Every structure is written in C-alpha cells, then in structure tokens.
C-alpha cells in the first residue's frame, strides 16, 4: 500500500515536471512566434524607402522638366518628362494606398499628396507633345514642393521609426527575459527529469543487483538442501527446477528431469490428487498433502508435498517442497492405533458406567423412599417420582425445585425447625421427622457428600410412628396401671388395715371379756365394728366405682337440671352429716340450668365438699359458689385447710395418689380421680388452686342449657 502510494506520487511528480517543461516550452515558442510575427510585419523601413524613392522620382521629374523648359532634347526616352511623370505617379499611387496611406495620414499629409497626385495626373497628358516652358517650370516648382514635402514626411517617419525601434527593443528585451525564465524552467524541469531518470536507472540497477543476489542465495539454498526436495514447474507441469534433494529422494538427477513433464518422471506425480494439487498451485491455491508410497529401495515411506503458487517475471509457476516424513508418519500411526484402543476402552467403561447409572436410577425410581440430589449451588440434579409427589412438594415447589425452595416446602410441617429456612453455604446435615399431613409422617434426611452434592432422602415413617405411638400409649397405660396398683396396694394397706384392726380388736375384747362384758360395753364394741364395716364398705364401693370407670361401664345420661338446687341439697345434707363444719353457700337467685348427668355431678360435688371438710382440721369452713360466665356455669368449693404442696398439685387427679399433707387422714386417692373423669365425660374440667397450709380452691364448669334443650332432655 505505501509502496504503491509512493510510486503513484513519484509518477505524479514526474508528470508535473514534464507538464511544466512542456508549458515552459510552449510559452517560450509562443513568445518567440510573437516576435517573429512582429518582425514579419515590420515594414516601416519599406515605407521610408517608398517615400524616399518617391522623393527621388519627384526630383528626377523636376530635373527632367527643367531640361525640357530649356528645350533640351532627350537622347534617352527614360529621361523624358512623360516617362518620369508616369514613374512618379506610380510611386505616388503606392503612398496613397494600403498601410503607406495610413502612415501618411498619420502625419496629416495625405491630402497634400492626393492633391499633388491629382495635379500630376492632370498634367500627364500634357507631357506627350512639345512642352510649354512656362508650364514646365510651374510644374517643376510644384514637383520640387512635392519632393520637399516628401522629405519632411521621410524625416517624420524616420523619427517614428526610431521611437518604435526603441519600444520594440525594450519589448524584445522583455521577451528575451521571459524566454530566459521559461528556458530556466525548462532546464530545471529537464534537470529534474534527468535526475529522476538517473535515480530510476540507479534503482533499477540496484534492484537487479539485489535480485541477482537473491537468485544466487536461493540457488545456493535450493541446491544445498539435501533432505528436502524442491521442484519448480510451469503451467504444463513441465519441470523447471529439480534440486539435489529430489535426486536423493526419487533417484533422478536434474539433467534428465528439467524440461520434462513431471507425470512422466515419477509415479508419484501421476497420482490424481498430487497432479491436482500441482495444477491448483499454478492457479494460485496452496496445498499440502501426504503421499504414502514406496521408496526406490522398496520400503514403505510417507512424503509430505507442499505446493505453492510462484510468480516470477509475469509467469505463473508453481513450487513444491517434498519432505520425507516416514518417521513422523509411523509414530502418528502408532499413536492413532493406541488412541483407537483407548477410545474402545473408554467406550466400554462408559457403557458399563451408564449401565450402572441406569440401574442406580431405576433402583432409586423404584425405591419406596423419595430421593433427590442437588449440586453445591442448590440446583436440582435428580429427583425421583416419590419425592416429586410428596405433598408439600407438589403444593409449593413443583415447578422450580431448588434446594432452598425444596427445604422451605417442609418448613411448615410439624416437627420442622428453622434450619430448613436458614439454609446457607455452610450447610450442616439435617435429620428431621415431619408430619406431612394428618397421620402421615416422613423422615427428611439432608446429607452433604464429598464434592458438594447434597442428597435428600424422604422416608415414609407413618407406620413406624403409629406403632411407636401405640407402644407409647400401651407403655403409658401399663405404667399408669402399675402406678395405680402400687397406689392401690399402698392405699389398701393403710386404709383397709385401720378398720380391720378395729374389727379385730373389738372382736378380741368381746372374746376376752366374754361373760364379764357389759351390755353397754358390748354396744360400744358392736357400734365400733359396724362403723368399721361401714367404712370398709365405702372403700369397696369406691374401688368398685373406679373399676367401673376403668371398664367404661359408667354411662352418661345428661339432662337439663338446675345446678343451684342440686348443690343446695348436697350442702344441706352435708350440714347434717358434718354438724361441726360451716358451709357457706353463694349462688345466683335465679336458676342456673346446666346440661349434665345430675347423679354423677352430685358425686363430684359431694367429693369436693367432703374433701374440703376432711382436710380443714377441727373447724372446717367451706365456701361453695355458683356463677355464670357466657355459655358456661361454674361451681367452686373453697376451704382454708391444709392445702396441697405446690409440687404435688399436678398429680392429685391421679388414681390412688395422695398428697403428703394428707397422711394420717383417711382416703383412697380415688375420689378426685373419679370426679375429674366424670367432668371429662361432660366436656368440662376441674381446676385446682391450692397453697400448702393456706387452703384450696376447686372449680368445675358445665355447659349451660337453654329451655329447648331442657325440654328435649325431658
């Protein structure tokens, strides 16, 4: 690109130089032609000559007339006035015509000359005959006057000539200088062109020299490369160059190859692809190919042929470099064979792996457990159908399942914890039992293995959980039973022993005293026996009630009844039984209708009331209250007795359980348990509030019934 630009500029400069030279030449020639034209039209001298000739003729005529006036005879007719006047008239006529006339006019003499011409013309016929001397003298004087006038004109013309000459000289001088300048221009342009020519010739010589050196160098290189064959060929694929490398390779030397067609020289060039590559190189396309054949020694070998286009001196040639690459070729073949074996092995291994993977996936798919795998970024890698159909997943993240969304699905299940929501990169393994839906439990196991892959396993453990719950409840019941029986044994050993001891001692006394026993004493003893028996009977009833309750044989027969009346009756009866106790009663004036089994509720109230009296020492004070709150009726029994220790408040409704403050006071530990169970059957509950040595407050509630319900119940 720069080279072409440079050459373009050089050509332009040369053109400009040539153009300026031509222009200078043209201007010079034009100026010189101007001068030439001026010189050609230069005829003022001729005019002057014409005038002087005319003046001379006028003088001759005057002389001739003078001689004629003196009657002189003319030997030569050319000296006679008639001849001379004709000559003069012809001369004068020239001055009155053309450029001469304009010159004379310039000096203002044209009129005078025309008048003289007229006079001479008039006088001319008179010259034929003998001339009157007076007329001749008169004409002579006129002719002399003409001559003098002509002399004056000649003087003026001469002066004009000199002026014009001076002007012309200066003009010529200017032309000379201009021409000189143009000549200098020509010389400069020519010098420049010569310089260019010289430089061009010099450069051409230099280039030729470089070319020759390069040629020598390339010849040297080509002829001394013995391990690489080089050939140059023309369009007919005739060999132009055959280097010694080719000789060692194909066994032919340059003398019997150069000038021959390549196909005729060696079988390698007859091959279609080789011949095509050589032809393509001539057309301008490089090519590289390998040819496997036999060496002159008959061994297998591989030749690499590089074909390139070559442009030398406007000719389209091709050059080919031929190299023996047998060693590389064999090594490559070896490598290819090994590669092929390796590929086969890889394929076998891959197939085995794929089979194992398919088996694994099939196993996972058919496994009862849900299974999913995520990569370390939390992207889902795999999830089987079981995990996809798990309820939280189908509801919350069926479409876009990532580890975070997946774990969040389970966050709202029972048993979940915050680890499911605060999942981050520093992931810790999670093991959770989750209640997926009512009655369906699953074990969620999230584990990170090497490489960051996170496996999630979701196992259905509903059956296990149900079994565990059943076992637990069975165990609880067993424990409860065991405890109950332990309590029962304890209670029996305490509560049954005392009346039995009374019975035994009374019986012994009666037996020992025998006859000596008085009637009163006997009555006392028998009374004691009966009292103890009554007590035993109560104990047995209590135990039976409890047994009935356990066996589920207590039936609930609810009906509407007035709680105030019910409780009031019980209080009244109790006052009679326990005359030493003060029972306060506080209830609304109006009836409080509740929906209950009044016989069972009576048992509850009696139990609470007797307990309050029993655990209040010598002077029991008991307060019974009834009130309503919303749709429920409440009844409370308060005492200010021994109370229950705070750590035992929660256990007092257990069967056969008795607080330690109750030691020494008769009781089975069944009553409160029985009462609580009755309240549970009614959908209510006994609440307790108690402080040791300060008293207790027992409250139970019942649903209120309206009139319709009471009517229905009735």
């Amino acid at each position: 690109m720069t080279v072409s630009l440079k050459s373009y500029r050089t050509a332009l400069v040369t053109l400009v130089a040539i153009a300026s030279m031509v222009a200078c030449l043209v201007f010079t020639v034009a100026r010189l032609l101007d001068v030439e034209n001026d010189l050609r039209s230069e005829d003022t001298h001729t005019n002057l000559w014409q005038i002087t000739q005319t003046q001379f003729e006028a003088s001759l005529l005057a002389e001739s007339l003078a001689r004629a006036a003196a009657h002189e005879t003319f030997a030569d007719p050319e000296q006679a006035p008639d001849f001379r006047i004709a000559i003069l008239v012809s001369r004068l006529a020239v001055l009155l015509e053309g450029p001469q006339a304009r010159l004379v006019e310039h000096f203002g003499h044209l009129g005078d000359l025309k008048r003289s011409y007229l006079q001479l013309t008039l006088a001319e016929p008179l010259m034929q005959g003998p001339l009157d001397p007076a007329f001749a003298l008169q004409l002579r004087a006129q002719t002399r006057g003409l001559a003098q006038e002509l002399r004056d004109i000649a003087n003026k013309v001469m002066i004009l000539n000199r002026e014009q000459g001076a002007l012309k000289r200066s003009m010529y001088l200017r032309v000379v200088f201009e021409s000189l300048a143009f000549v200098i221009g020509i010389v400069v342009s020519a010098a420049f062109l010569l310089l260019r020519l010289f430089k061009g010739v010099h450069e051409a010589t230099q280039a030729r020299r470089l070319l020759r050196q390069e040629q020598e160098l390339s010849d040297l290189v080509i002829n001394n490369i013995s391990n690489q064959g080089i050939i140059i060929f023309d369009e007919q694929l005739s060999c132009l160059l055959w280097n010694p490398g080719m000789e060692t390779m194909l066994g032919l030397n340059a003398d019997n190859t150069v000038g021959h067609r390549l196909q005729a020289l060696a079988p390698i060039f007859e091959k279609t692809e080789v011949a095509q590559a050589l032809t393509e190189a001539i057309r301008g396309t490089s090519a590289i190919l390998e040819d496997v054949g036999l060496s002159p020694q008959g061994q297998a070998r591989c030749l690499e042929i590089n074909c390139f286009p070559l442009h030398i001196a406007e000719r389209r040639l091709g050059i080919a470099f031929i190299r023996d690459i047998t060693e590389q070729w064999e090594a490559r073949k070896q490598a290819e064979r090994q590669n092929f074996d390796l590929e086969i092995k890889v394929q076998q291994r891959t197939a085995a792996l794929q089979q194992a993977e398919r088996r694994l996936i099939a196993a996972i798919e058919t496994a009862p457990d849900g299974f999913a795998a995520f990569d370390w970024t939390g992207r889902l890698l795999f999830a089987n159908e079981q995990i996809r159909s798990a309820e939280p997943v189908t509801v919350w993240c069926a479409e876009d399942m990532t580890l975070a969304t997946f774990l969040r699905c389970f966050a709202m299940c029972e048993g979940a914890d915050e680890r499911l929501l605060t999942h981050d990169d520093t992931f810790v393994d999670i093991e959770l039992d989750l209640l997926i839906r009512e009655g369906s439990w699953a074990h969620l196991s999230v584990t990170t293995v090497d490489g960051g892959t996170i496996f999630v396993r979701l196992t259905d453990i509903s059956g296990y959980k149900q079994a565990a719950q059943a076992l637990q409840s069975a165990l609880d019941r067993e424990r409860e039973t065991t405890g109950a029986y332990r309590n029962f044994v304890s209670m029996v050993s305490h509560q049954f022993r005392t009346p039995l001891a009374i019975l035994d001692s009374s019986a012994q006394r009666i037996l020992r005293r025998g006859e000596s026993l008085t009637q009163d004493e006997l009555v006392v003893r028998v009374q004691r026996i009966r009292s103890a028996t009554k007590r035993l009977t109560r104990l047995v009833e209590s135990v039976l009630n409890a047994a009935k309750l356990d066996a589920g044989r207590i039936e609930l027969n609810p009906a509407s009844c007035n709680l105030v009346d019910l409780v009031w009756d019980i209080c009244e009866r109790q006052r009679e039984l326990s005359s030493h106790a003060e029972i306060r009663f506080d209830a609304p004036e109006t009836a409080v209708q509740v929906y209950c089994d009044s016989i069972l509720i009576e048992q509850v109230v009696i139990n609470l009331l007797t307990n309050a009296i029993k655990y209040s020492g010598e002077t029991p004070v008991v307060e019974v209250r009834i009130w309503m709150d919303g749709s429920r009726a409440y009844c409370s029994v308060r005492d200010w007795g021994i109370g229950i220790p705070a750590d035992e408040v929660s256990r007092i409704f257990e069967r056969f359980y008795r607080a330690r403050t109750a030691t020494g006071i008769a009781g089975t530990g069944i009553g409160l348990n029985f009462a609580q169970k009755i309240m549970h059957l009614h959908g209510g509950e006994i609440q307790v509030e108690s402080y040791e040595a300060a008293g207790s407050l027992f409250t139970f509630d019942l649903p209120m019934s309206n009139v319709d319900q009471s009517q229905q119940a009735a």
Partner: protein
Amino acid sequence: MRGYVLIILTLLGLTCGAPAGAAEPLPMPKGRVILTITGAIAQMNAPGEARFDREMIEALGAASITTSSAWTDGVQLFEGVPLKAVLDRVGAAGTSMTASALNEYEIVIPFEDLKFSPLLAMKADGRVLTIRDKGPLWIVYPRDDYEELRDNRYESRWVWQLNRLHVE
C-alpha cells in the same frame, strides 16, 4: 545542393526534350519591346537577348491569380502570363534571375519560386496596367494561397514596371 542539382537536371530535361514551342526560333517583336531577357537562355531574337512585345507575351498563354497585396488594400484579380511559360519559351537554364524594373528596382528571384506559379500580370481587375499603374508587367505571387509568401522576402519580389530579366 542535391535539390539544386535536381532542379538543374529537371530544367535541362525541360530544355532538351522541350516542347515544339521551345524549339521554334523566337520571332522578332513587332510592337514596342516591353520585356528583355538576357543571360543563360537558349532562344534569342537579338544578340544575347530575347525581346518580347505585348503580343508575344500574350501569345505564351494566359493565367490569373486572385490575391491581396502588401501595397494595396483589398483583393484584386490579376491576369497575365505564367512566368514559367516565358522562361520556358526562352529556354532559360539557370538557378536564379535578376528582375529589373523601369524605376531601376532590382532583385534576384530564385527559380524555386516557380513552384508558386508566379504570374507576369498585365491586367488588374480587368484594367490593362500602364506604367503609372505599375505596368506594363507586374510579377504577382499567389500571396493568399501560400502562408509562406506573406513574408518580406517574397513581398520584395513583386516587381512592378518589370522590363528586364537576367537569367543566371
């Protein structure tokens, strides 16, 4: 030099193998002599001279040139005899001729000028030329036909009042 030789040879050839007219002896002039040719000529009708009257010249042929001149304004029709015809008639053998006029004007005219076919004009615009009208013979060149003739050297050869030719 070679050109001159060629012309001489040509002229010699013309002289030797001359037409019948050239071989005929020149008759004596009957009227007033208006042109005298001297020098290297073959035909003479006086000692060393060939003399021509108007009638003899007119008999040598007729030609005309329409041209302008350096001496007059405008174009004129000149009629007369070709100069070459006159020279052929006298068998002129030379390279140049000296033309003289009644007004003593003299100039050398080379024979090369014959290629322009100059005319010995005797009439201008149909009017017979007299001495006062630059007659009776006027050498006229076809000035308008040849650019090179518009030159002072050729203008000087327009000899009027011609009366003598000396061939050399």
